[in-house]
């Protein structure tokens, strides 16, 4: 029964996607429809237009299996011959180093800031 609930809720979440696509084309907002949809779903929950139980199980499944939806794009990398070159190796190295720096500095900044605030409020 759980699968049916999840499926129905995923279909229901599509209502927000369709609304977002409509709003995007009406007002030509430079954000992807999925992000506009996220804001719409948030507002619908916040103003109690819909109940959390109506979407929660479907949403949890979608979030938990997110990587599955990225897999085709990752397979699509084979379409870029440029990657299989010395330049491709370099760019992967650059991305690796840069991602490491961004992740560690963001973590250290947020962690440090939080500790500072905690000391302040004591």
């Amino acid at each position, binding site marked *: 029964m759980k699968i049916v609930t999840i499926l129905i809720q995923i279909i229901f979440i599509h209502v927000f996607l369709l609304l977002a696509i409509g709003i995007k084309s009406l007002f030509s907002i430079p954000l*992807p429809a999925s992000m506009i949809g*996220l804001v719409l779903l948030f507002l619908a929950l916040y103003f109690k237009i819909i109940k959390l139980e109506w979407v929660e199980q479907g949403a949890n499944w979608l979030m938990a299996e997110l990587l599955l939806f990225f897999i*085709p794009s990752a*397979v699509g990398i084979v379409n*870029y011959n440029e990657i299989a070159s010395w*330049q491709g190796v370099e760019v992967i190295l*650059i991305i690796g180093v840069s991602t490491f720096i961004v992740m560690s500095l963001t973590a*250290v900044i947020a962690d440090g800031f939080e500790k500072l605030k905690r000391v302040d409020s004591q």
Partner: protein
Amino acid sequence: MIFLFVTVVTYVLYRFTKALNNKVSFPVFHPLLFTPTLLIGLIALFRIPANDYLEGAKVLTHMLGPATIAFAIPIYKNLDLLKKYSAIIAVSITAGSLIAVFTSFGLSLLLHLDRSFLVSVLPRSITTPIAMEVSREIGGLPTLTTVFVIITGIVGGMIGPSVIKKFAIQSPVAKGLALGMSAHGVGTNKAMEYGEQATTFSTLAMILAASITLVWGKFLIPSLVGLIA
């Protein structure tokens, strides 16, 4: 028919990789690295053109939309926390997004990357649709940017736990912000392993990083690109 076949095969291989990854936690078995590798091997073996596979897998890619929308739920559930930590969020994401652009730019200059690669790599740390938008704006190749975004996600998902351990990051706020900032949706998916708070902050970091990079794409990145002429 092909759509059903492709979807089922991808799903089964994904499940298999996830189970394997849970048993032997080894970076190579990350679902976003190992499953695509298996699939690329399979389509090469059966001489299926990659575009036929991608066409068949459209339903899966489509689900990225509803999956992104789903992240409204952790935000809604933890609204009080977000208000409480708004200053930390603003500072970390402003810093993180600038560091992402500047390190990508600096390292690319250092290694004398071709112009099209250099420009396309600049918006790589944010979620695909917005990264493509920024890429187009600054004169990059949006499809190449997509590839760099995916590589960022794979790397981020793989190194995330070690970075958190190495810098002894305890707070779920910092864990979430770092993962969502540096590795968009894939980082946010990783953040789920650290609980709902980390997921919330990661989601917000992902959204804000994308929005603020949209701004950098209008005002800051064009002048950087102008420097290399």
